């Protein structure tokens, strides 16, 4: 596993995930900047994401939807707050209605992404999630809970098999 540390603070309601990759910061940045790569990892395995708008510039909004196993399509959005390629990205993410309009009844969360070169062609990425409301989390978790880790790993095997 490339996840090197996870720190959860149930009082402050933040979670920090740190991971290291055998790739350059520029390459890791592409995972966020290129919508085709982004949609391969953002959605849970049974809810693949499709980004219809995505541009990492301050003030820009990304729009996406996920497609669930029963054809349901929950929509979501990112609001890009700060961008310093390839090292720093701050965004707000939230849910939208079926027309892609931000859903004001579901409060949003903030993600702070830091990418740094740690030498030998390796890169460390940390993501601090400042938690959304319980409702937003319920919805998020309802989308992710059906597969859990096992299916996530199964999905990776499938991609590997494609060669």
């Amino acid at each position: 596993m490339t996840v090197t540390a996870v720190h959860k603070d149930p009082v402050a309601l933040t979670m920090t995930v740190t991971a290291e990759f055998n790739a350059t910061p520029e390459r890791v940045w592409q995972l966020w900047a290129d919508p085709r790569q982004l949609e391969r990892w953002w959605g849970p395995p049974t809810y693949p994401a499709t980004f219809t708008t995505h541009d990492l510039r301050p003030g820009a909004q990304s729009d996406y939807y996920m497609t669930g196993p029963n054809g349901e399509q929950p929509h979501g959005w990112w609001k890009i707050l700060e961008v310093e390629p390839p090292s720093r990205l701050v965004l707000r993410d939230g849910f939208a209605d079926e027309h892609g309009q931000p859903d004001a009844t579901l409060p949003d969360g903030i993600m702070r992404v830091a990418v740094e070169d740690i030498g030998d062609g390796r890169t460390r990425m940390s993501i601090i999630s400042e938690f959304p409301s319980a409702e937003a989390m319920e919805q998020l978790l309802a989308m992710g809970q059906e597969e859990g880790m096992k299916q996530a790993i199964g999905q990776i095997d499938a991609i590997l098999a494609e060669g």
Partner: protein
Amino acid sequence: MQLMQPTQGSVRQFDRVFGALADATRRDIVRRAIDGNEGVAELATHFPMSFAAVQKHVAVLERAGLVGKHRVGRRKVVRTELEGLHIAQRLLDRYEEIWHGRIAAMNTILDESKETAQ
């Protein structure tokens, strides 16, 4: 597990927990009340605000099930209810699983692009 089948009741409970923890003063009260040695008046001495304001914060936490008032001899102390915190912890656990899946998928993409480049 409660999270698997969210009911209206559990959603409201989560809301109260998260709403209560959304405030820095209340988070600090939760931390201080883990020992359960202090009453509201003693807790209030740690904060640059009135006794009444601290009392209000404690009431919000109490409604969320995050602290409880307990009688110790002749005193009433405020004590953190660990079960309330465990609900928040469980939500974070589920979120962690999602991120493990995402990082694994990122790794797969990076490996693929390396193979293509070779």
